[in-house]
């Protein structure tokens, strides 16, 4: 009995200290880790931008295991953090089981989808990666001199095939005769963080004639970009702006504005509007990066062609096929 009293006393004390943190936002990174130079780091940058702008503070956690997904959500919700922002599609299922227990807390799943009918306190943010990949695919085909471009994916999941499929469609739209090579790094989550294997895949693709490589592979992409720079061909970064990693040798980066999504969610705070948001070209949710590092690589013709394509996609004149809609790709076979 005394033991139980002790438990209750401890949790009461915890609840009291937690009250102080009321309505601060919390951020949960996926297993890739906070500083992956890519997807999760974009989320981190968004949170930092929010903190710098508002002077507010937030708490974040890098997950270590599957069981921690629900645990982190519950602990943050119990401690009064609101909203609880999460990155990565693997968080959607834990959110679906936790959200009903904390109806006053808003949960955000970036890249994941939770049914808004069943869970009114969840915001699902999805990106039209295929549209952004389409644009960088066009640019890759126009920059290629060998007539072969390639793609290195991280873990072989539908999300990454969506990138690859958009990229291949874009490349073929710019040059119908282009050859597109595609490789996935692996079939386990380790594939998100294996720069050595990324480098090997890049070398193999270069030996097959590729001279522009698009890496959508989290931390693995660092190795791809490095090898491309070493062998003096072009590469394309992903999620964050990676142009500065190898100035003058990264053609562009396919931006996925996870940072903006996180910043917006934190700014909205507890009054966050829930539901489903799809951020595509029209919403500036995906884009390609232009800065001083790649200004010499991208010709005016390319920019003009890409701008035209962007308008066509936004207006609906051109639709880019979304791999995840039917698990198939017209431009590339896996």
């Amino acid at each position: 009995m005394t033991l139980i009293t002790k438990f209750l006393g401890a949790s009461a004390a915890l609840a009291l200290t937690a009250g102080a943190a009321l309505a601060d936002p919390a951020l949960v990174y996926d297993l890739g880790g906070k500083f992956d130079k890519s997807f999760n780091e974009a989320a981190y940058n968004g949170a930092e931008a929010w903190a710098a702008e508002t002077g507010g503070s937030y708490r974040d956690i890098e997950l270590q295991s599957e069981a921690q997904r629900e645990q982190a959500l519950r602990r943050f919700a119990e401690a009064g953090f609101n909203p609880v922002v999460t990155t990565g599609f693997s968080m959607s299922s834990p959110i679906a089981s936790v959200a009903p227990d904390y109806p006053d807390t808003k949960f955000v799943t970036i890249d994941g989808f939770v049914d808004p009918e069943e869970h009114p306190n969840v915001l699902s943010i999805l990106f039209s990666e295929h549209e952004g990949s389409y644009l960088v695919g066009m640019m890759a085909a126009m920059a290629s001199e060998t007539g072969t471009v390639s793609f290195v994916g991280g873990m072989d999941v539908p999300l990454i095939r969506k990138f690859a499929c958009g990229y291949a469609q874009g490349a073929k739209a710019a040059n119908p005769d282009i050859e597109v090579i595609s490789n996935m790094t692996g079939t386990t989550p380790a594939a998100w963080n294996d720069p050595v294997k990324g480098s090997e895949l890049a070398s193999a693709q270069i030996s097959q004639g590729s001279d522009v490589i698009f890496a959508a592979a989290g931390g693995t992409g660092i190795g791809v970009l490095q090898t491309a720079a070493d062998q003096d061909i072009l590469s394309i970064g992903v999620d964050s702006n990676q142009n500065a990693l190898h100035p003058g040798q990264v053609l562009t980066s396919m931006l996925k504005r996870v940072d903006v999504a996180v910043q917006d969610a934190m700014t909205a705070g507890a009054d966050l509007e829930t539901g489903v948001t799809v951020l595509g070209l029209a919403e500036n949710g995906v884009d390609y990066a232009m800065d001083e590092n790649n200004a010499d690589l991208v010709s005016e013709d390319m920019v003009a062609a890409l701008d035209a394509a962007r308008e066509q996609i936004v207006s609906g004149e051109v639709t880019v096929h979304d791999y995840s809609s039917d698990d198939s790709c017209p431009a590339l076979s896996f």
Partner: protein
Amino acid sequence: MDKMPAWADAVLVPLISILLAAILSALVILAIGENPVEAFNLMVEGALMRSAGWGYTLYYTTNFIFTGLCAAVAFHAKMFNIGGEGQAMIGGLGVALVCLFIPFPHWTVALLVAIVAAGAFGALWALIPAYLQAKRGSHIVITTIMFNFIASAVLNYVLVNLLRPQGAMDPATARFPEATQLPTFQDMFATADNPLFRGSPANVTFFLAVLACVAFWFLMWRTRLGYEIRAFGHSESAVKYAGISPVRITIVAMLISGGLAGMMALNTTMGEAERLVMNATEGAGFIGIAVALMGRSHPVGIFLAALLFGFLYQGGAELALWTNIPRELITVIQALVILFTGALDNMVRMPLERLFVALGRKDA
């Protein structure tokens, strides 16, 4: 007296090892500018002072008991089964298949069938390395570790191409039907005005793990098969002389070992996630080796070591939540404990042994 007493071997050596690991961890935490005392309090507070914390600690403990027993069976036969990870993955596949495709009326029936499925799948995955070791002399360490990678690839193929619901991103199966979901501690112990174990994943498989400890003890020290396995571990030639087939013992020991690893999946798939995810095992297969080493391959020791690692895992999660200690460092702390209790065992044992010998002489 030329040996130290049994109690010193079983209690003092691990305690000193843990203490050394703790001191080193404290220095590491100090070095990055955090307060080690505060960190330790946070771990105890989060893992042992709240019922939900216990729920997580016991959840991890359940995993480590199964994989610890898995490694221990093989140790008794002087084999190093590093394949617990892969065997547990395939065990999880067995659980998922029966849960998804057999319409169970009640969780008790589902659990019984799932135990058989998990054990059988895990055991079958261990059978191939066992056969290769027994008949072809391929070293079990090499084959089992390679089978971990094969298991991971098989599981990925099955999840991505066969079991994943249409349109889902996550390489995971659909949620298991309601009737197969195991009661958690919350379901069992919480009352309306006393919400114990809220949202924590510990479930009935914890009791199954305790039962497995008892069964393990009975098998190893009270049956002929257990005797044969232990005898085989001590001397293969003696076993041959006694008319026991080394091939049979190798294969049977590995089947039991694999079956125990497979049963770990009951906890992670049926108990916690209620679906099969890609990395449901999260390294428990490897932690099991450290647990078995630390627990001296005895069920009581394994239970206590599993509890310690459960505490480290849950405490580590609390550190990640409420401090700025990066997760890589939490892994370092966990690794230090493994290093000291598993790999550097003799560093503590030998001086201690000498000390006891010296003391013994003085007494005499």
